[in-house]
């Protein structure tokens, strides 16, 4: 291994392993929902693997990948990482936490799904393991911030390197988000699961969970955006269209993506309509930076096409490197996000939300957003990083070239089917799409189509894992190519207002307090009784 990226590569390795295992579980779930028989199909296996799939994909794959990517960006843009030893400690803690949670899940002691809503009660090690993963990410964030400060001491007044600007916004957002999670898990769930307190208030826990749950989405999305802004134009052979607006976009995400959690609780009691409305306003406001992103990134690609000699209105599209696995992954991820955005706008409109809340529409939606926009970008980024981290040539490049298209194809079938089934009322998180006969065969054709999509997705996931493992173990040794980032058309000359993280962090905290203090106080002032734990699994 090429030494300086060993820590990053270790994180990517854990992420890919989690992804591979979870993908296999995903295809079993899709078959089960379609009522297609296979050996070992059972209710307990279904909900156990659903928990594992959710935790491994949404928590382990994403968090470890983002930590690995963060180390690469910091090492390359800042020149060095301060506190590598702490990084290894965090890696150990996070891996141990993931393993502990995985063991209790696989033993059937924590079939509470990755949202772990009480009063469903998991084994204490499930909550403790999840906490350790978050603690690891906190240490990671501190290391990146310390590395940035060390850089700043030697580069006063200079604009923050663009990839680091996005990374810092991501990290600060993550601290803000995980505060809600820590209150829920450390303050409520762990003592309750250990039997130190008898009862828990499920509604209060849900509010803390969704304080965390929505910015979690942006914790996944912002690193993908960092790659779109800073790497994609470079690989496409162009320039970044706008430096300053890139910074604005990341700051807007930092400000707006936390005070929105009630849009996951439109159907909940205990929160007044006015506060649900307030969170709806901020929810739509977060669409804005994504719109700007669409423009800036596509404009950067047009520049690339034109630099390669394209003349007409649209033929620059044909000049883009569609056979480069990184480029293809990210371009398809962006197309996925266009569809995901429409779905998101529907979910956030509470009149329409009432039709689709907790139906298969939702699993259709987050497999295009998280499962494609984010995951496909990360898969593409793996192809970009591996040769540069390991000093090895990509093995089976033909497989890597078709893999993103296969994913997109499978996902189109998978996600479209679930979107339609959801609009027709199929609930999500069900072992049997026919609801074990009680609902007849209302959704059968759609769940079978989704299962076909799931099999294609699994084939694509397998191709990805094969390329990664083959490259890692037997890729031809080469001089590691450099990590290069896109050059803006007009780079910022000096640090401007969007670089003032102190100010923006303070404002972000104020917004969270405004969004949550009053409704929480209102809820806490009611007589509340609490619930004991249940383990119906």
């Amino acid at each position, binding site marked *: 291994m090429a030494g300086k990226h060993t820590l990053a590569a270790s994180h990517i390795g854990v992420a890919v392993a989690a992804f591979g295992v979870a993908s296999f579980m995903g295809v079993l779930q899709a078959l089960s929902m379609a009522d297609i028989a296979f050996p070992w199909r059972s209710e307990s296996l279904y909900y156990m693997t659903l928990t594992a799939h959710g935790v491994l994909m949404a928590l382990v794959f994403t968090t470890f990948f983002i930590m690995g990517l963060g180390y690469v960006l910091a090492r390359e843009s800042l020149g060095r990482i301060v506190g590598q030893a702490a990084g290894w400690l965090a890696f150990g803690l996070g891996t141990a936490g993931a393993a502990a949670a995985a063991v209790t899940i696989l033993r059937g002691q924590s079939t509470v799904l990755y949202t772990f809503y009480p009063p469903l009660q998991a084994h204490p090690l499930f909550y403790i393991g999840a906490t350790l993963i978050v603690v690891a990410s906190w240490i990671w964030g501190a290391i990146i911030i310390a590395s940035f400060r060390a850089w700043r001491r030697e580069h006063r007044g200079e604009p923050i390197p663009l990839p680091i600007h996005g990374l810092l916004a991501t990290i600060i957002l993550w601290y803000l988000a995980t505060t809600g999670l820590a209150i829920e898990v450390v303050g409520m769930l762990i003592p309750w699961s250990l039997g130190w307190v008898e009862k828990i208030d499920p509604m209060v826990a849900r509010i803390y969970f969704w304080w965390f749950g929505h910015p979690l989405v942006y914790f996944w999305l912002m690193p993908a955006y960092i790659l779109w802004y800073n790497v994609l134009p470079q690989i496409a052979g162009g320039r970044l269209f706008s430096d*300053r607006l890139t910074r604005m976009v990341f700051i807007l995400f930092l400000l707006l993506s936390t005070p929105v959690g009630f849009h996951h609780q439109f159907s909940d009691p*205990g929160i007044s309509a006015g506060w649900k409305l307030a969170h709806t306003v901020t929810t739509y406001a977060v669409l804005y930076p994504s719109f700007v992103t669409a423009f800036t990134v596509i404009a950067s690609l047009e520049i690339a096409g034109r630099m390669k000699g394209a003349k007409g209105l649209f033929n620059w599209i044909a000049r883009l490197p569609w056979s480069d696995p990184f480029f293809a992954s990210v371009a398809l991820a962006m197309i996925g996000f266009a569809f995901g955005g429409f779905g998101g706008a529907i979910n956030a409109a509470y009149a329409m939300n009432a039709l689709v809340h907790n139906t298969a529409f939702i699993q259709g939606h987050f497999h295009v957003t998280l499962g494609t926009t984010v995951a496909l970008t990360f898969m593409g980024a793996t192809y970009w990083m591996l040769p540069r981290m390991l000093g090895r040539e990509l093995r089976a490049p033909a497989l890597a070239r078709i893999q993103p298209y296969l994913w997109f194809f499978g996902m189109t079938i998978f996600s479209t089917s679930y979107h339609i089934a959801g609009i027709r009322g199929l609930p999500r998180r069900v*072992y049997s799409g026919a609801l074990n006969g009680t609902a007849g065969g209302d959704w059968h054709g759609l769940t079978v189509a989704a299962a076909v999509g799931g099999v294609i997705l699994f084939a694509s996931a397998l191709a990805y894992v094969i390329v990664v493992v083959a490259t890692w173990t037997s890729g031809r040794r080469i001089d590691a190519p450099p990590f290069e980032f896109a050059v803006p058309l007009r780079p910022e000359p000096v640090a401007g207002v969007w670089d003032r993280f102190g100010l923006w962090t303070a404002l972000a905290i104020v917004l969270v307090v405004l969004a949550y203090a009053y409704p929480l106080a209102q809820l806490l002032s009611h007589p509340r009784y609490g619930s004991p734990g249940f383990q119906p699994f």
Partner: protein
Amino acid sequence: MNIDLYERIWMWAASALVVMFLAAILVPAAVQAIHPPSHVETLDPTKLAEHPEFATGGVNTRSDGSVVVSVAASMFAFTPNPIEVPANAPITFRITSADVIHGFQVVGTNANAMAIPGYVSQMTVTFATPGRYIIACHEYCGLFHHEMVGTLIVR
């Protein structure tokens, strides 16, 4: 700020789009009072069996003709079941849970609420089309979550 003309046009267009989306929600909220269910009422979930309203649940017609349906969700059934209500009348559902979190969704309509232990969800819905509807639990509640189905008969 030094921003490209096309980008400036796009930023205005994007702002306009966001404002339009919001108006589509805020105007009905202000004018027609269209709100999501947001009732705040608590009770002791461990004593639901003795609760006057939720022990058996039921359909009650008030003197003004409005209909109130009280539903207790528990692993893995809705009580009462089936539920019979008249068509074209405002039906107020009051829903709670005796154990874990469940969902309450009348398939094919926008009647959709969470059943949370210790809290009462309340929403008012009018069904225009008579017929039999599936009530599905749409929140994972244990190994037989997918069998937690009830029937709503609209006459």
